């Protein structure tokens, strides 16, 4: 998101809006990207993002190839640069990269001519998630500028948070972050956000609440003592929601941990737009594919 201008973001969101309708048709396919090839290179496991990109590419008639780390030569010890050179030799138009290392798309971009879409790199960025979140906010609220957004959870280790903060700031929203102090990065204010200690206070008077997924498998040992305690003090439940605005929307990038960072009745409740986010993800990714390899423009997106 760091590389995108406000105009770029607006163009992507407008394009997504016009393409969204394709996914609602009986025959969900247009020939726009016929003859173009897209490599989905997922070094890290992913269900939502990967399926969403696949759907988007197929609905635009691009040929897609999927690679995962476990099924690729990466397990045989090939470096990312070598894999990139081999992919380049097959001359794809676009590579969608998900990688566990921050900055990996930058490394790949030096080696290949194809455009690159960052589908999440380490704890750095997840720009397409931020774009679909922006789209969803705009769809629901009619605007982004001037809105108050709270992002709650493990900000320090979240690429979703970092990309959303950058994107929301660019589009003129005010972002507040909150979570256990162990999950707030050092000098967080330098990201252009307000840090609020208490989560109930953080969601009060906000137009949008964005919950982050807690990675139970990796972090439960040190960053917080137990899931039970996390759910009690940092989870979004009905009780906390009483402090929220009546027209608030609740977002979550998925996959959700029911009963941990978000209670089921909130996730499935009237404020929730979680499934809209997923639907919009396809439209936003179609827009990106179209803009990067469908028209005249061709450059990298991060």
């Amino acid at each position, binding site marked *: 998101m760091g590389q995108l201008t406000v105009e770029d973001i607006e163009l992507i969101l407008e394009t997504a809006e016009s393409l969204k309708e394709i996914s609602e048709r009986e025959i969900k396919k247009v020939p726009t990207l016929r003859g173009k090839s897209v490599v989905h290179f997922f070094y890290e496991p992913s269900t939502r993002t990967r399926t969403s990109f696949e759907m988007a590419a197929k609905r635009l008639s691009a040929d897609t190839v999927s690679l995962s780390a476990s099924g690729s030569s990466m397990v045989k010890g090939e*470096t*990312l*640069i070598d894999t990139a050179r081999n992919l380049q030799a097959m001359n794809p138009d676009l590579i969608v990269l998900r*990688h566990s*290392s*921050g*900055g*990996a798309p*930058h*490394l790949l971009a030096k080696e290949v001519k194809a455009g690159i879409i960052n589908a999440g*790199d*380490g*704890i*750095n*960025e997840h720009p397409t998630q931020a774009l679909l979140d922006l789209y969803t906010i705009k769809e629901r609220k009619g605007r982004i500028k001037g809105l108050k957004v709270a992002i709650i959870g493990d900000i*320090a280790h979240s*690429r979703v948070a*970092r990309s959303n903060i950058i994107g929301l700031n660019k589009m003129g929203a005010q972002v507040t972050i909150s979570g256990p102090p162990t999950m707030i*990065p*050092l*000098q*967080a204010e*330098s*990201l252009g956000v307000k840090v609020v200690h208490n989560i109930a206070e953080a969601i009060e008077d906000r137009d949008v609440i964005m919950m982050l997924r807690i990675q139970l498998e990796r972090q439960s040992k040190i960053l917080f003592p137990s899931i039970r305690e996390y759910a009690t003090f940092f989870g979004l439940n009905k009780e906390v929601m009483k402090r929220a605005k009546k027209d608030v929307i609740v977002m979550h990038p998925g996959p959700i941990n029911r009963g941990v960072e978000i209670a089921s009745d909130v996730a499935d409740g009237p404020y929730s737009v979680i499934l809209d986010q997923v639907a919009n993800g396809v439209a936003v990714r179609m827009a990106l594919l179209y803009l990067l390899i469908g028209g005249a423009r061709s450059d990298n997106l991060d």
Partner: protein
Amino acid sequence: MTIWIRDGKIVDSVRGVVQKRDIIVERGRISRIPKPGAFKEKGPKLRIIDASGKIIVPGLIDMHVHLREPGHEYKETIATGGKAAVAGGFVGLACMPNTDPINDTSAVTEFILRQARKSNLVKVYPIAAITKGQKGENLTEFGDLRRAGVEGVSDDGFAVSNSEVMRRAIEYARYYDLVVISHCEDTNLSEDGVMHEGVVSTQIGLRGIPAASEEVMVQREISLARLTGCPVHIAHVSTAGSVQLIRRAKEEDVPVTAETAPHYFSLDHRAVIGYDTNAKMNPPLRTPEDVEAIKRGLAEDVLDVIATDHAPHSPLEKDLEFDRAAFGIIGLETALPLTLALVEEGVLSLPEAIKKLSYNPATILGVNGGSLREGGSADLAILDPKQEYTLKAGDIQSKSKNSPFIGQPLKGRNLLTMIGGRIVWKRAREHLGG
């Protein structure tokens, strides 16, 4: 044969002066340091080196390098590291034990010294591991290693996390006059980190290594040195907090000495933006405020030594994703210009700067050298402090080219290095006569 180095200025670090003097070298030693015009001999056996406009310094000594041999000869060997050293003006290197096998027995030490003799360039001062296998558990045989030729002990690359082991190491090392060099890092705090934890890591989404991971260990070493009265040398100081701790310890006469590396006063953590793996080292590049504190620490003699932490890596370890790449950069060929930049900036006088690159490390290691004196071995370097150039990968003598300074403008260059009266390096196309 007699060598007459004439019309240059010599740096006397011990007395803190730069003066016009000639140097006469006979039988590998400096026989006289006459005033200009005082030496008048002629003859076929006289070789003249014209050093007009140049600076003559004692041969530099780097007390912290990784020569990679044995085990990682594809990155560097004692011979190629020696070549990089003499190109950079160094005549002596203390090499860290994290080779394969680790230098934790006299057999490895003897091998290193044999390879050094074979390459016949720089003097090599092996540093052995403090603990067997650098595992932090059992002490290596300091006495046996001393006898084989080591000058110090260090588990560099790792900290000795068990404080009791470290206490016993510094006590025991004193019996053999071995310097104990501490790599200060609390690895529980730094675990998974790949750059300094601060505003840049927050913005570019890389895991951080907090300044505290260095500082808590610096404080521990100071406490142990105070407790035992035995000296400790702190390796590669990178933070303002460490400088402050060492300053206070020195004021209280705790026997502690310290070094920093040129990159800690030349670059800060913003160099990581763009994910250049040549900006990845351990300890990491810190904040601009830390850089200023390091400079102040050098100026106030809190930091005694400038050592390079020369850490050669091949593209196999560096052309990778940032968090998978190895820590470390080469430094032997850039230490001099980067240090001279501090002189230009007014942080250090020229004699002070050279002292931290020669006399002080020699003294801490307990080896000869580090000054130009009549009767001493003719180990020296002739510099052009004004020469400006851009560092090119092709000019680097080290086998590895992992330097963030490639493509950067530098000022100040070593033209000639002499060890024991023998010219071991002379920069091509420089007219020095001789």
